[in-house]
């Protein structure tokens, strides 16, 4: 364009420039139009109702911040690193929720990474076939999968029957209604959400980079550590973010598989909604949302948005 406008003088040149700008603006408008239906849909059917629900925290039943009071009212104190921290059930539940989400995320990563790696290193057609096995759990409702875990973990479940039959135990292990069962059930549900972004990023890694590293003298372990691992980090970040944030909102699995102290925030929210304490339910939901956004912000701040959602391609 520079060469084109080089010889144009005065008004001619300005006219030309203006026309190009006009064209560019029209181009931009076209993208806006393409996005419009989805944006309108989201605002009308998601944004508005969610906002309407969450704002209840500030006026239901009466205007003010009283819905947040139970969250900051200390019912007891907990000694932690020599400090006594004010505590109540709601803070405990938020803490338990974060703990569960963190463990689920870390274990899902440890289990999902090798699977995604294997999927990304076979041919695309075979990977598509194997991907079906990753996705099969998606076809079954969360409830049914939770029940499947009950069949496995129960006092007379398959695992205990096997242990007793093999003579490895004389008393059945307590597996069901424990934190362990919650982890198992949630990790089972979350694994595909970890594997898919990992796989997408790993597929995008140029295999020639790995060959080049080998050619330059790197044994397979060094190729993985120095090349593959760093290039797969955007997938790790995206997978962890997805799993962590989805885990924060879990409800059915902990309710069915957990013990008495495995209470997650969404169970509390449900409780408040059914008690018709919508304002307090909204306050809990709002805090959970802020927590999720905060963690998202932290992730993108530390890793950079581009690394979380960007690709590994050069």
């Amino acid at each position: 364009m520079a060469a084109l406008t080089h010889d144009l003088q005065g008004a001619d040149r300005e006219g030309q420039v203006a026309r190009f700008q006009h064209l560019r603006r029209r181009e931009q408008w076209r993208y806006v139009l393409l996005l419009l239906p989805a944006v309108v849909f989201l605002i009308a059917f998601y944004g508005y109702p969610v906002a309407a629900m969450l704002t209840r925290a500030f006026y239901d039943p009466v205007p003010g911040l009283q819905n947040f009071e139970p969250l900051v009212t200390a019912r007891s104190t907990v000694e932690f690193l020599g400090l006594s921290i004010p505590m109540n059930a709601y803070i405990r539940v938020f803490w338990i929720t974060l703990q569960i989400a963190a463990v689920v995320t870390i274990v899902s990563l440890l289990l999902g990474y090798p699977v995604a790696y294997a999927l990304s290193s076979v041919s695309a057609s075979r990977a598509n076939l194997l991907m079906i096995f990753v996705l099969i759990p998606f076809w079954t409702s969360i409830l049914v999968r939770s029940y499947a875990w009950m069949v496995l973990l129960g006092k007379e479940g398959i695992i205990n029957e096997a242990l007793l039959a093999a003579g490895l135990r004389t008393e059945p292990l307590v597996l069901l209604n424990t934190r362990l069962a919650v982890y198992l059930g949630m990790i089972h549900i979350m694994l595909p959400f970890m594997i898919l972004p990992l796989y997408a990023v790993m597929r995008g890694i140029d295999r020639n980079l790995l060959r080049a590293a080998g050619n330059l003298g790197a044994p397979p372990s060094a190729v993985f550590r120095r090349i593959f691992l760093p290039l797969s980090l955007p997938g790790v970040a995206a997978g962890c973010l997805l799993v962590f944030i989805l885990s924060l909102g879990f409800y059915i699995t902990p309710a069915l598989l957990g013990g008495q102290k495995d209470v997650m925030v969404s169970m509390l929210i449900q409780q408040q909604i059914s008690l018709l304490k919508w304002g307090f339910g909204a306050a809990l939901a709002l805090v959970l949302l802020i927590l999720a956004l905060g963690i998202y912000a932290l992730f993108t701040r530390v890793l950079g948005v581009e690394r979380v959602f960007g690709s590994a391609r050069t």
Partner: protein
Amino acid sequence: MIQRGLTRRELVRRYGAAAAGVALLGPRALSSVASAQEATPVALPEIPAIPAALKGSGNVVVASWGGAVLDAQLKAYIEPFQEMTGITVTVADGPDPSKVKAMVDTGNVEWDVVQLGRGDVLALDGYWEEMDYSLFDTANLDAALMRPDSFAMVLFAEILAYRTDAFPNAPEGWKDFWDVEAFPGSRTMPAAAQLPFLEGAVIADGVPMDEVYPIDIDRAFASFDRIKPHVVKWWEAGAQPAQMLTDNEVPLAVAFNGRITPVKEAGAPVDIQWNEGLLAEDDWAIVKGAPNRENALKFCAFCTLPAPQARFSMLIPYGFVNSKAAELIPADQLARLPTAPELRPKLFLRDEQWWAENRESVIERWNEWILE
């Protein structure tokens, strides 16, 4: 969720009928106390001619909990009602109290009659049309159940359920349930999503059944402290205790009678101890501003007639509210109903008014207590 179709049938096969109805983990109502018992062909009593005042035209929208309860309601109430009155019934699904609240708050009332626990009706004070009993045949109704804003449609019991193979002697009541030496093993009890079972706690601590209300909350929680280490699960859905008994996860449970009868009849070594059982009700209530109020009243009045009441209790093991219904039900079926003449005296009625006043503070305290 898994209300219908293949998944439900598979679950039924695997866990017995109780598991299939677990879908709704949530508000207290019959949804979670109903069994998914497969309908066995029973000869239902005929409904005699009805008063002309109940006949009419047009439509009425009834919000019910679906599943097995709705199946029974269709045969007991809804189909004969349509036939005999000329009024069309539209069935809506899932009468969540929060939905009623939303409808009335936004002036967008779509439902006429909803089926809700009495506690939910009380919690939504001011959201209901006044019940006009002039259309009702009140001769055989319990006046205590005729509230100004709702009418009890069904009575169900929260009872002690146990495995018959676990103990030499059957537990006799809540004292035995709390006695972990005489009756060793794990327990399961309702969590806060249902109401915490304070009544059982104070009875176990020595309060007679008919002096439970007003409940001494401190005493109840002190009693809970003693049983807490032995409760492996505070259940959220009515299906859970029945399943845990069937799977031998626990030998003792607090459960809804309608969940236990089907697994017992399916052959599980499980039985009900009716002693000191808590009788609770689900009500018909007419939503404030209901578009078909008149037809809604006719529907409620029809349902309380002896024959429809008997039909319902024969289709699903929940109690009738019209005492004349007992005459229409065969003896063997009567024996499994909490309102059977010989069982009713063993039970006490939940004081919904007390709960309406104390529910919030009890659950708040419960939330703290459960995490201690």
